[in-house]
């Protein structure tokens, strides 16, 4: 089995053999929502950070009891899974004030509406600024420091600066490797599809980082000998919020669009910016996690606008597809702003609304087909 095959299959299930082995060895796992959570702190505490997904969920029947029909379906499904005990492999959960949907879902966790393992469960919501400036960085530093101390206290471990530096270095390595992978996508004949990349990104948050890095290095070597994809109709940038279903990207690519870059949670937002390895670790983490390229949760749209324009240029993008989860107000308003700006620059842009479960695929197929026809090379 190639490294690509090994990595990409981890996206199909909530857990995987790596997680099972980790647990068998007595390892602890802390789940987290959103890419503002410093996984290095969890890692430096000797635990496995795991990005929360709702993979495999087929219903939100239970989750709906403590959300509403106007809550985003990712949150409804994820809460449903929590209530059904699907996350019992976790020893803790960290979230932040990401958006109205996540905070309300987290309240259901706080109010003990979910089915958790018996031992004391670590539960924390970080208060992360919405703005990016010096006071916000200072606040974030304090918040990360409190987070670190609470992890130490709850799990009875010590997180040393030395351990943090090692973790930062390891995660930076992951980020550099992923950037190398993205570099390959800038070519005329990219050796990987967007769907494969999404799978790899999911794997990057669902297994020990050291093993992931090893496999990714191997994969990069293997890709050198792989025939690239040249029969695409258009090079696409895929943007939007939480997207964890590779089938969604596969559908776009089946129609001839090749996703060559993105602005996704399981995408550039997770790894694009590095942590400064020469600064005091907590402060460096705070700066990186606040200043990194963000989603519309942060009130800094002009930064994202510029970043998208740079991606379009660097990856020779022919068109942008913005996918947004229904009821997400942040993407619901930022998407048209991006579209207005893209049109000014002559970059075609399509906005697609979606639910967590793949639905209305016929309609999506028609819209993507029509979009590709308008921009076909």
């Amino acid at each position: 089995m190639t490294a690509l095959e090994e990595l990409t299959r981890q996206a199909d299930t909530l857990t995987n053999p790596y997680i099972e082995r980790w647990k068998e060895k007595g390892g602890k796992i802390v789940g987290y929502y959103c890419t503002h959570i410093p996984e290095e702190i969890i890692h430096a505490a000797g635990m496995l950070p795991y990005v929360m997904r709702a993979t495999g969920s087929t219903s939100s029947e239970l989750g709906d009891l403590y959300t509403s029909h106007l809550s985003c379906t990712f949150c409804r499904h994820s809460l449903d899974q929590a209530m059904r005990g699907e996350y019992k492999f976790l020893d803790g959960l960290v979230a932040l004030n990401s958006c109205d949907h996540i905070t309300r879902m987290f309240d259901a966790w706080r109010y003990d509406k979910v089915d958790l393992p018996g031992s004391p469960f670590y539960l924390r919501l970080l208060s992360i600024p919405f703005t990016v400036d010096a006071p916000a960085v200072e606040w974030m530093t304090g918040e990360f420091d409190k987070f670190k101390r609470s992890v130490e206290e709850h799990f009875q471990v010590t997180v040393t600066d030395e351990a943090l530096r090692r973790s930062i270095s390891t995660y930076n390595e992951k980020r550099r490797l992923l950037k190398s992978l993205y570099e390959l996508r800038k070519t005329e004949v990219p050796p990987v599809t967007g769907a494969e990349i999404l799978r790899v990104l999911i794997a990057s948050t669902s297994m020990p980082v050291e093993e992931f890095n090893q496999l990714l290095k191997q994969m990069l070597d293997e890709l050198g000998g792989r025939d690239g994809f040249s029969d695409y109709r258009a090079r696409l940038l895929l943007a939007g919020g939480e997207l964890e279903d590779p089938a969604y990207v596969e559908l776009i690519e089946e129609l001839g669009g090749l996703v060559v870059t993105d602005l996704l949670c399981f995408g550039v937002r997770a790894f694009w910016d590095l942590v400064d390895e020469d600064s005091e670790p907590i402060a460096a983490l705070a700066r990186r996690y606040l200043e990194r390229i963000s989603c519309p949760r942060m009130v800094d749209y002009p930064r994202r606008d510029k970043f998208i324009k740079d991606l379009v240029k660097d990856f020779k993008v022919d068109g942008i597809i913005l996918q947004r989860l229904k009821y997400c107000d942040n993407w619901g308003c930022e998407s048209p702003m991006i579209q207005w700006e893209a049109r000014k620059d002559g970059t075609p842009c399509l906005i697609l609304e979606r639910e967590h479960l793949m639905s209305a695929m016929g309609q999506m197929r028609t819209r993507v087909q029509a979009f590709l026809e308008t921009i076909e090379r």
Partner: protein
Amino acid sequence: MAENYQLHRGLYELVKGVPQSEGNLMADWLGGVFSAVDEGRPIVYNQFTIFSELMVALDVQPLCPELWSVVSVAADKYACCESIDAAQEVGISPELCSVDKTLIGDIMLDKMPPPGMLMLPTFPCDNAKIGYQVVAHLTGAPIYFLDCPYWMDDEEAMDYWVNQYKGLISFLEEHSGKKMDYDRLKEVTEESNRCIDYWLEGIELLKTKPLPMNGPFAAGFMPGLTSLGRPTATAAVKASLDTLKARLAKGETAVPEEKVRVVWFYYPVFWDGGLSRWMAEMGAVIPVGLIGYYPAEPIDTSTPESIIRGLARRSLETPMGRQGRGPSDIWIEDCLNAVEQWQGDCVILAANPGCKWLRGMYGLFRDICRERRIPVMVWEVDFLDPRITSEEESRTRIGQFLDTVMER
């Protein structure tokens, strides 16, 4: 350019001669807005959780966009529909709160004077944060966000928040070209303290059973949005308080026979001004509402620092700001407190489709109310768009609920 605001101009003409309380507040505010428009002075959009004291002290004209929309539908129940549709037509999410869709649409259709600057905190919801950014994008106006920690549970968080408030003063100074006069701010804050004292006294009197008066104290603290810190605001609230006291002294009650006390812990249905009167005919009164629930504390005006700190602290307690800046606990506890203190028999929640933050906590609230045997009614109705749920449907559902409560 003024001809584009005819609805509000007309309303201004109507209310400027009204001699008492709320009418005067409205006239004072709209008059100020139109003077600024006509004289080309910048207008400051103050989101509804930012009260007016700083703007009054700096002598810049506030325009609370949410209030502008409320005024629209109070005058014509379908007034916001065109703007809502316009926003959706350019791609704004249909699920966005109708207040923010109206704001965006009003700007696109030139139905609201454009902002010289915008300011809002990072609460209570995603709608406002992103909606105001769209307006800033469309108009090019500078925008200031007061970043609020999610957990306001220690002095560190309060210090951070106070610094955000100081940043707001700098922002206002920079973009208005005016310098804050702290003696003037002291006067304004003292006036604000007086006004709020009257307000709190009024709210307290509404705990009386049977209720002496349905009306302004439960319906919302409008002075905060328009002119808090000006004598006109204080006079308006005092006039309402005097009326309330007089009714109490005479033993007058809101309805001949009070059958149900409703805690209305959300916004009113702004386009349906007759709803509370209709409920009153059934013997149902509303002693407390979310937007009248304002547990403000007096501000120490001894130093500029104490004033700013006091204003910042009080700004965390604004209706809906207080409940929307953190975990569900605050709204739930406030609502339960309202039931207890104002002797509520039930809770009615007009569930605006845009309010995901509030809708997401109803499940937890429902469980608690079941334990405590508090009847709760939640029905979906858009507070600015009458096309979502009709007046008739609302009345049918509320009527059935009230009948059930009365039978208990």
